[in-house]
C-alpha cells in the first residue's frame, strides 16, 4: 500500500523522522507493531537495494498519519533522508504483536537509541490507561537522544543517560533503572539486543515478579512470517527452546522467555 509523506525531518546526521499518511496502515497500528518500508519510492521498480526494512510505529495522529523514527545506518535509511514531502512510500503493515497494556500501575519504559520509537506511542497509551510512566532513555551520546518535543506526552518522568556523559547521567541506561527509588510493577524495553539483555537481568535482580516486555530486533526478509529469517530463540515453561519468528510471534515478547545467550 502507498503512504504519502507529510513531513521528513533529519534531526542530525544519525537520526531522522517521518510523518506519513495512510488510513489503512493506521487502522491496524498499535503500540509495539511495526511496518515494512520498500526501498522503492512512488512507482520505482529498481531492485537494488531489494529488501524492505522494518520500522516501529512511533505515534499515530488523527487515525490517518503515522510517525516513525529512522536511524541512518545503511543504504535504505540514507535514501530515506532524501525523501521529499508528497512522495509516496510503499509500505506493508501494520505487522507483528502489540505490547500488553496494563492499567493503573507504576511503569518503567527503558529505551536505547532508536529503541525510543515504540516507547512514544506506548507511553501515551499507558498514561491514558491510568499508569504512571517513567521513561529511562539512554544513548551513546547527546546526538542519540531525540528532541523531547517528539516524545510528546509519553511520560510523567524522564531520565536520560549517555555513555559519554554529554547529556544526563554518564553511563548505561540500566544504571538509571537500578538507581531509581521508584517501585515498578511493569517494565517495557526496546533497544539494542545487548541492552535488552541487561535490562531483563537488572529487572529480575530488583524483583522477579516484575513483568517485563521486550521489543526484539532481527533482520527481516519479509516481515509477514514467510521467509523464516528472523527467528528469536525463546524458552518455554518446560525448558524447551523454541525459535519464534520476530515478525509474527514478536517483535514483542515476554522478556523472561528470551534466550539471550543463544542470540548471535
Amino acid at each position, binding site marked *: 500500500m502507498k503512504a504519502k509523506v507529510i513531513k521528513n525531518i533529519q534531526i542530525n546526521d544519525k537520526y531522522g523522522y517521518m510523518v506519513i499518511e495512510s488510513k489503512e496502515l493506521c487502522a491496524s497500528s498499535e503500540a509495539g507493531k511495526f511496518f515494512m518500508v520498500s526501498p522503492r519510492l512512488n512507482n520505482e521498480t529498481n531492485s537494488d537495494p531489494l529488501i524492505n526494512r522494518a520500522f516501529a510505529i512511533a505515534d499515530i495522529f488523527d487515525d490517518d498519519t503515522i510517525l516513525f523514527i529512522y536511524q541512518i545506518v545503511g543504504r535504505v535509511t540514507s535514501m530515506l533522508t532524501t525523501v521529499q514531502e508528497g512522495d509516496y512510500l510503499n509500505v506493508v503493515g501494520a505487522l507483528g504483536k502489540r505490547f500488553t497494556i496494563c492499567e493503573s500501575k507504576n511503569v518503567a519504559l527503558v529505551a536505547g537509541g532508536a529503541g525510543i520509537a515504540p516507547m512514544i506511542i506506548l507511553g501515551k497509551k499507558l498514561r491514558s490507561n491510568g499508569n504512571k510512566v517513567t521513561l529511562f532513555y539512554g544513548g551513546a551520546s547527546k546526538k542519540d537522544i531525540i528532541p523531547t518535543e517528539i516524545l510528546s506526552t509519553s511520560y510523567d518522568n524522564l531520565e536520560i543517560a549517555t555513555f559519554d556523559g554529554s547529556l544526563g547521567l554518564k553511563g548505561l541506561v540500566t544504571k538509571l533503572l537500578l538507581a531509581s527509588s521508584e517501585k515498578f510493577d511493569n517494565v517495557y524495553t526496546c533497544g539494542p539486543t545487548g541492552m535488552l539483555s541487561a535490562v531483563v537481568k537488572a529487572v529480575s535482580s530488583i524483583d522477579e515478579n516484575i513483568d517485563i516486555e521486550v521489543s526484539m530486533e532481527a533482520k527481516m526478509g519479509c516481515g509477514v512470517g514467510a521467509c523464516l529469517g528472523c527467528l528469536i530463540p525463546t524458552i518455554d515453561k518446560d525448558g524447551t527452546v523454541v525459535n519464534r519468528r520476530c515478525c509474527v510471534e514478536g517483535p514483542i515478547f515476554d522478556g523472561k522467555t528470551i534466550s539471550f545467550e543463544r542470540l*548471535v
Partner: protein
Amino acid sequence: MNKNNDHNKNNNSDNNVKNILEKVICGIKFKNPIITASGTFGYGLEFIRFMDLNLLGGIAIKGISLEPVEGNPMPRIVETSSGLLNAIGLQNVGVKAFVAEKLPILKSFDTNIIVNFWGKSIDEYLKVAEILDNTDGVDMLEMNISCPNIKDGGISFSSSPIATSEIVNKVRKVIRNKPLIVKLSPNVTDIKEYLKVVEQEGADSVSLINTLIGMAIDIHKFKPVLANKTGGLSGPAIKPVALRMVYEAFSTVKIPIIGMGGIMTGNDAAEFILAGADIVQVGTANFTDPSAAINISNELRDYMISKSFNSIDDFRGKAVI
C-alpha cells in the same frame, strides 16, 4: 485433478470473455501462469491478509519432509546486490502437520496447490511422495532435488545425472495420481544433461532454477555472514542465469517448463515465457510486496494485450525459436 478441472470450469463460466492468461500443463488448468515459489510463500496462509489467494495460478508450498525440520542456525538471510542470500535449511512442519493443519484451509481456495517435497534419503523421498500422492487437495508435486543449504537436502541427488536419474526413477514409481514436477539446481556444469534424464525417467514437468550457491563475508567480524557459511542466492541478480537455463530447457525437453529466478514484474514474466517457459514462479518478489504475484499477473496480461497475444502459447519460446 478432477476437483481442479471442475472448479476451473465453474470459474470460467462466469462470462464469455476469453481468459488469455489461462494455461494448462500436465492436465491441470491454471487461471494464470503465476505460481508463488516454494520457500517464499510459507504455507500460503501467511498471505491471506494481504491478497485474495483465489487470484493465484498456484501456490508452491514450502519444501515438506517426512518429519518436522528445525532448519539452520541464525543468521539465515542477508541481502546482496539485487539479491537475497538465504540458508534457512528447509525448516518445515513435516508432512503430517502440513496435511492435518495447513492443507484443510488451503483447500478452500480456488487455486492449484503444488507441494514441494524432499527427503534426507531415498526412502524418505518415497515415503513423503507416497503420502502426498494420496492426499486430497494436493494438485501437483514438486520434487526438490536441489536445495543447497543442508548437507543431505537433496543436493547429492542433483550432483550427477546418474544420481538424478536414480532418484527420479524411484519416486516416479510411487507417484501414481498426481503430476510430478522435478525442480532442478542451477549449480551444475551442463543442465541439459539433467533435463534429459529427468524427462527420460518420466517427470511430467521441470521447474528451474533453484537458488545459486553464494556467499557473503562480514569484513568486520572476518567471517561469513550466514551461520551456514554459504546460502542460496535468489532475486533479480540471478534472472539472466535463470533465463539462459529456461532457454536451454526449451531446446532440450518436450515436457512443460516452469521458469523462475528473479521475476519482479510482468515484463520479467514475459521474458521467461519468451525464453520457453509455460508457467512461471514468483519467489523473492513476495518478500518485497506480499501481493506481488497478483500484480505480476495483471502486468503480464497488460503486456499480452499490448502485443496482441491471445494466449501464453502465442509467445512461448518466441524469442528463441
